[in-house]
């Protein structure tokens, strides 16, 4: 059944639960979420108000799940969800929101606005109102196995390079390993050093790990576009591979929404709890650190700061781990003014980077990050999400700033004692 308004409306109806109802019932139009959204702070456009982005879902909730809305509907009153609304809202929901979750942290009545927008995307996508770029990426994810079209041979080629560079073996399809590492296409294509860094660290720590040739892709376009059916299909691939290899823990790589997809949404998408654990690479590394299995030998004297990827810190719960790890090698670590759970998004998360239509605004709102960086003027920026990393690099270039971007895993590997 192809996308249609009816289908979208039905999906929106499916999205409403007690949280949605409680959130919409509580909004007082105070505007504080607006001040918390970089798409407003950097554009000054009030239509970017986070809670308004969930308007299609709100109308469905109001007309279907409230007595007053139901009565209004009987009299032909109340606002309807129609093609025009969805067309008007498409750019708000997909181009002007990275699902960063900052609004959900400031809302005085406690609305998880991000959740509402995320659910709105489900209806938008089902109604055929998803952006071209995201549709294409999703199609590649399902058909090829990766949003960027990376196939196994490409990975194998990169593995060979890494093995050559590091002299270490990259285990693939090793049954019974403790850890199964997922990778994002971006890491495979742009930052293959990451694979080498993990290999080096795990080797030092004596960890058994593996990649899966059947499910190496960590990213999940289904989450970004907002189609749970597809997201579930993609998660299922990882679950199957993990079960097949009988690993204890699946590791999400340095990618924000990949972590969200497999760690927090995954079991709920496939409808059952995993019989393996899911951890972010930073959680695994911090655990090794706690166990004393990681030792650094050199210190970094540069002025370093850490950019919290939204889905990993605020929406994911990995906030202290990166700081613990950075403490192992950084002498001159400075925090940005808003950090941890209150960080500002780079501007490219939530599928925005896959959506060419949003290129302009994504670079415009980068101004927020730039201002934050101008305050502390770091020598280098550490992050733990390759999407953030790519966009930060692009943004810094756009604004004529020359600050290198570092992967936390990679820089940690560099400082490990030999």
């Amino acid at each position, binding site marked *: 059944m192809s996308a249609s308004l009816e289908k979208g409306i039905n999906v929106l109806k499916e999205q*409403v*639960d*007690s*949280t*949605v*109802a*409680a*959130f919409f*019932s*509580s*909004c*007082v*139009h*105070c*505007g*504080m979420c*607006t*001040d*918390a959204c970089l798409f*407003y*702070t950097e554009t*000054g456009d*009030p*239509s970017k*108000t986070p809670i*308004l982005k969930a308007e299609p879902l709100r109308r469905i909730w109001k007309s279907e*799940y*409230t*007595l*007053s809305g139901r009565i209004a509907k009987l009299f032909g009153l109340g606002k309807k969800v129609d093609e025009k609304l969805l067309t008007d809202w498409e750019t708000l929901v997909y181009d002007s929101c990275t699902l960063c979750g900052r609004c*959900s*942290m*400031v*809302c*005085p*009545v*406690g609305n*998880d606005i991000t*959740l509402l927008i995320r659910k709105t995307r489900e209806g938008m996508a089902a109604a055929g109102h998803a952006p071209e770029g995201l549709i294409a990426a999703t199609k590649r994810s399902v058909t090829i196995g990766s949003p960027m079209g990376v196939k196994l041979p490409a990975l194998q080629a990169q593995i060979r390079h890494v093995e050559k560079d590091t002299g270490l073996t990259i285990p693939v399809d090793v049954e019974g390993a403790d850890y199964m590492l997922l990778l994002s296409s971006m890491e495979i294509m742009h930052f293959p050093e990451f694979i080498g860094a993990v290999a080096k660290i795990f080797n030092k720590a004596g960890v058994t790990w593996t990649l899966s040739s059947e499910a190496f892709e960590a990213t999940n376009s289904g989450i970004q576009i907002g189609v749970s059916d597809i997201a579930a299909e993609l998660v299922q691939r990882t679950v199957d591979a993990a079960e097949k290899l009988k690993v204890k823990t699946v590791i999400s790589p340095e990618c924000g929404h990949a972590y969200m997809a497999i*760690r*927090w*949404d*995954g*079991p*709920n998408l496939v*409808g*059952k*709890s995993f019989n393996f654990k*899911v951890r972010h690479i930073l959680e695994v590394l911090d655990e090794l650190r706690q166990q004393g299995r990681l030792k650094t030998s050199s210190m970094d004297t540069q002025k370093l700061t850490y950019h919290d990827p939204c889905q990993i*810190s*605020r*929406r*994911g*719960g*990995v*906030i202290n781990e990166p700081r613990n790890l950075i403490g192992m090698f950084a002498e001159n670590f400075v925090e940005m*003014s*808003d950090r941890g*759970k*209150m960080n500002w998004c780079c501007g490219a998360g939530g599928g925005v980077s896959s959506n060419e239509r949003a290129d302009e605004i994504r670079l415009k709102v980068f101004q927020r990050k730039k201002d934050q960086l101008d305050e502390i003027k770091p020598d280098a920026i550490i992050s733990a999400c390759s999407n953030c990393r790519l966009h930060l690099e692009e943004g810094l270039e756009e604004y004529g700033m020359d600050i290198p971007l570092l992967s936390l895993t990679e820089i940690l590997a560099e400082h490990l004692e030999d």
Partner: protein
Amino acid sequence: MNEIDFLNWVRGPGFQIAVIIFVAGIIIRLVEILMLGRKPNLAEAKGSAMRSGLRTIFSRSIPEKSTFKRSTFVIVTGFIFHIGLLITIFFFTPHILLFKDVSGLSWPALPTPIVDAVTVVTIIALFLVLAHRMSNTVLRFLTNYEDILVWLVTILPLITGYFAFHRVGATAPTLLALHILSVELLLVLFPFTKLMHAFTIVLARWYNGAISGYRGVQS
């Protein structure tokens, strides 16, 4: 209908009707929300949803520093008028008598001059809130008729109460009756407008805190 008839009506049937709509409306809406239910979270928890949910119910009242800096006016005026409403509604002797009559519970009142002063401050704060709403681009964009209506029915009991206490502008029974009527208007509209946040805020904050807390983040 003379003014005492009017007063007797608002104290009697009028109040009863308002309370029925208020109580029924609030309960139906809360049951309506809760019965929609929520799927259990199948992901392995990193923190306690319960503890975080409970904490957020309270902690969300205190804005985090950078948020305070960004939304200072909204937060300060919001605090003033909410606390003002709390004091004027719950700590004025005649109101406590009303609650005692309905619930049997009673608590000490604040001295009348203090409540009087708080009323003025609250009214001023509400006017500032409206002025800000009208002048700020974001808020003007966000504002709909309901927002104005809710503002009006919130400030009316304060203004009528102030006039009734100071007995200016009309005869005392009329002023008192208008005050009670304005409260009844508030009660009647309560379940069907954003005023409902006074009750659903507990749910919303709980859910937000629980969702975050489950992932190990205190929201």
